[in-house]
């Protein structure tokens, strides 16, 4: 799941200064699940902004609407009529959702309310951990299901650097060394030979904006 967290109120106020009628669009996808951009957070933020601007004697009106997911156009279509009277849009989706919203309503200034932080897991309520860098070439088969790209500070592919201390990363003693964990797990599974071979230089996949078309759908999108 994509994890995001709300920008601080001060930054959002600075962004929205000068717009008096704003629609805050929530997202029922990942950001709702990670307690960052669901309906509840939309209402919370709107209340914060309304009170805060009122205290500054700034005329400001903000309404809310939450869609299923902002990363899909047909869900955004529900907003077509609704957005009309607004000066600006505030999006509580991830960075991808914000851009799709902005794309659907190009004449409306669209602002992000969240910082999208990583692809991660839900460790517990309100506690998330990064697990994936969406690098496009998964190495988890080699590394026993622990990602060195996401979880080693240097993204090393051929074993740990010289620095781990008591099982922790030298960069942050609160973080476990990914390679020690990889070594441990592979050893337990009897698969250490995985990391005794040299992992060759990777072909990074992030040169241009990623696009993916599934083969069965290729026909559908081929230019006639």
């Amino acid at each position: 799941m994509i994890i995001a967290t709300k920008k601080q109120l001060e930054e959002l106020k600075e962004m929205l200064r000068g717009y008096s009628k704003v629609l805050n669009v929530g997202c029922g996808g990942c950001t709702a699940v990670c307690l960052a951009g669901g309906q509840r957070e939309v209402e919370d933020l709107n209340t914060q902004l309304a009170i805060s601007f009122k205290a500054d004697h700034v005329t400001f009106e903000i309404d809310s609407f939450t869609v299923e997911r902002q990363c899909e156009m047909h869900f955004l279509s529900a907003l077509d009529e609704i957005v009309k009277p607004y000066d600006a849009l505030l999006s509580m989706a991830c960075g991808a959702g914000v851009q799709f919203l902005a794309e659907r309503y190009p004449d409306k200034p669209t602002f992000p309310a969240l910082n999208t932080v990583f692809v991660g897991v839900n460790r517990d309520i309100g506690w998330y951990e990064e697990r994936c860098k969406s690098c496009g070439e998964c190495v988890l088969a080699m590394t026993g299901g622990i990602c060195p790209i996401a979880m080693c500070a240097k993204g090393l592919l051929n074993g740990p650097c010289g620095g781990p201390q008591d099982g922790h990363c030298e960069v942050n003693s609160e973080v476990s060394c990914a390679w020690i964990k990889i070594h441990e797990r592979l050893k337990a599974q009897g698969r250490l030979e995985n990391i005794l071979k040299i992992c060759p230089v990777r072909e990074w996949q992030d040169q241009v904006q990623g696009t993916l078309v599934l083969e069965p759908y290729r026909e559908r999108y081929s230019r006639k």
Partner: protein
Amino acid sequence: MYALARGPLLWLAALVFTVGIVYRVIELFMLTQKRERVAWPTHGIRVDSPEERKLRMIISLRHSLIGQHPVMAIVAGVFHFCLFAAPIFAKGHALLLRQSWGISFWSLPSSLIDTLTIVVLLGVLFLLVRRALIPRVRAVSSFNDFVFLFIAAAPYLTGFLAYHQWLPYKTMITLHMLAGELMLIAIPFTKLSHMVFFFFVRGFVESEHSVAPGGRVWSP
């Protein structure tokens, strides 16, 4: 009938109620488990800005049940409070306790109990009207819901009538005892079991909305 209601049936109801509640609590303990935490978050804690912190109280209040549904929240709160307080502190019940077991239990003035009872009855009326008239409540209502409203209201209505002796006392008090016994028996095994569920789950099971995280989670 009076003797039956006051004797064996009362015992039976009390027994079923107690055993039932204990059973439900044990069941809830069995269906949940202690949250095993092997790791704790050590970094990456998002810090709210001072202004956000200042507004936190207002926002949580505004988005709590009281902020969102003030009428329903207050009615539900007062209703449930009176539902408990009226029978526990009724003079008649304390008297009965002293006569049977010689235990003295303090009670509230009858006029106050009277008021509590009226509040309960008004609360039931409110819930009844709500259930009958508001479409979204009707959408999740079945015949049972009305039955349970009746079961909840019956002891209070009969008790009120018996106390004021507007109808034949002996009949009313028998009905009152029967109604009370019915309610006690119904609590652990019907919709009224939300009494146990509420205290246990909101208090012990961790969730986004748990009031007091008790460190338990639902077992898979």
